[in-house]
């Protein structure tokens, strides 16, 4: 029998531990994918995804069911990622990994530094292209990146995005537009003749 998210949350609230496991197993891949998209590093993605579910465990009783469960979960995910990034920013020696576009501009040399742990993409035929895209995504600012990742990877509607980020639709529109424009510019040299 397949329970809806909301039913699982309710059962968890009623003390059914198994439903927590079901929620984790339902969402672990998606949360990991989002986190990886934001932090661009496997070890950190694992660590932060777990942190997300630890918080779910602690705070699920605060979820009041006013929105869909996944928008609540994704909001938590984004918060975990952003606060981890903020923490890392303050740690000396690690600043380079935060290829903040406003700081580093569009200099590809800086972007390369953004992530040293890219795994080769097997599925995408054009490996170089895939890496370029990933690295381009990674170079976006944290806020642009997380909005973009949730839209592109999880296909959240604008309405849902406003709930995750607690901002207006206009803000979402402008963030996505800026994110895409920055990406487009970064990979423009590769765009002609591909796809």
């Amino acid at each position, binding site marked *: 029998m397949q329970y809806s998210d909301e039913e699982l949350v309710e*059962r*968890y*609230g*009623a*003390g*059914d*531990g*198994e439903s*927590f496991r079901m929620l984790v197993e339902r969402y672990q891949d998606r949360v990991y994918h989002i986190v990886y998209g934001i932090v661009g590093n496997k070890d950190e993605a694992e660590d932060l995804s777990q942190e997300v579910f630890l918080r779910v465990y*602690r705070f699920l*009783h605060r979820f009041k069911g006013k929105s869909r469960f996944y928008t609540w979960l994704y909001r938590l995910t984004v918060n975990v990622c952003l606060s981890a990034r903020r923490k890392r920013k303050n740690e000396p020696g690690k600043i380079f990994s935060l290829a903040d576009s406003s700081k580093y501009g569009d200099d590809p040399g800086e972007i390369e530094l953004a992530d040293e742990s890219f795994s080769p993409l097997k599925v995408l035929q054009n490996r170089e292209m895939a890496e370029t895209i990933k690295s381009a995504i990674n170079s976006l600012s944290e806020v642009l990146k997380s909005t973009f990742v949730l839209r592109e990877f999880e296909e959240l509607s604008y309405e849902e995005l406003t709930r995750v980020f607690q901002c207006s639709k206009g803000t979402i529109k402008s963030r996505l537009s800026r994110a895409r424009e920055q990406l487009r510019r970064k990979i423009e040299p590769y765009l002609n003749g591909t796809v």
Partner: protein
Amino acid sequence: MNPGKGFQKVLQCLFVLIILSGGMTSALLAIEPKEILTRSLEAQFGLDFEGIKKTEFRLPGRSYTTTTRIIRQEPDFTYTTTLAPARLKRLVILDDGKFRIKHIRGSNKFGFFPSLNSPEAKEIKRKSLNLIFINYKISKLLDGYILARPVYVISLIPKHSGNPRRKVWIDKKMYLPLKEEDYNWRGELISSSFYTEIHFDKRFSKEKFYRDFPQRPRKKVFSQERFLSLKDLRRKIRFPVSSAHYLPPSYEFQEAVLFSKERAVKLTYTNGLGVICLFQMPSNIKLRGHLEGAHPLVWEKGGRTFLLMADISRKELIKIKQSVK
């Protein structure tokens, strides 16, 4: 006259007599299962013995087994040490009829609870037994042996379906229950306890057991208050208490318990064997964690959080929930 025929008749008469007298004596000597249970209640409070008891507790997907050594001195003293599992080995419980003191050996941790050997506790048990007499079909099965001791085997079958049943093995001489098995309404074994060793009439000097325990705790802070009536309870707490107005057939109020530093209330209802627990507390107490086995109903109403736990059908649980006011 045929002498052979006359002899046959005499034999026949003798046979009938033997059968009759045998039946009558066994009927005279046989003890009613109810009487066995009543005597067993007295035996639980009136014997000196030392024993090792194994208890298994089953929940969906897991089970717990503990082995404890129990020294019982009548009328109201028990000293319990845990032999297994290893993580509980330092747990000692001393119950002297007034307090039930839990202690982790080698630490300065002491917990004070109301005694389970007290007259109040015995009264609760007596009431439960009376409910069993009303709500259960009690029958004696074939006698058996436990630890090479002859035992009565008694089966308790609920008159109303949807309730737990029990099988209990009671020592024929001492009337102490040596083994019991509880099954839930679905017929699954939920717990079993039995003695793996028992020595009757063993006297101990109690003093030595007190060595680990504080002689006179400066302030007796109970971790909980038990055996309260609803009236007692309402006097003791600041928030209003709701109770269930619908109970499945055969259930009655048993006791109110105040715990978790007087912030939470438990009301129990019983049919003598099964229990329904209704917990309530102010809503600023949040529940953390989850349960792997039990499926309680949890809800909030009027600034209070309620929790209802019982091994009965979901339909009945919901009916009780709706009646809580």
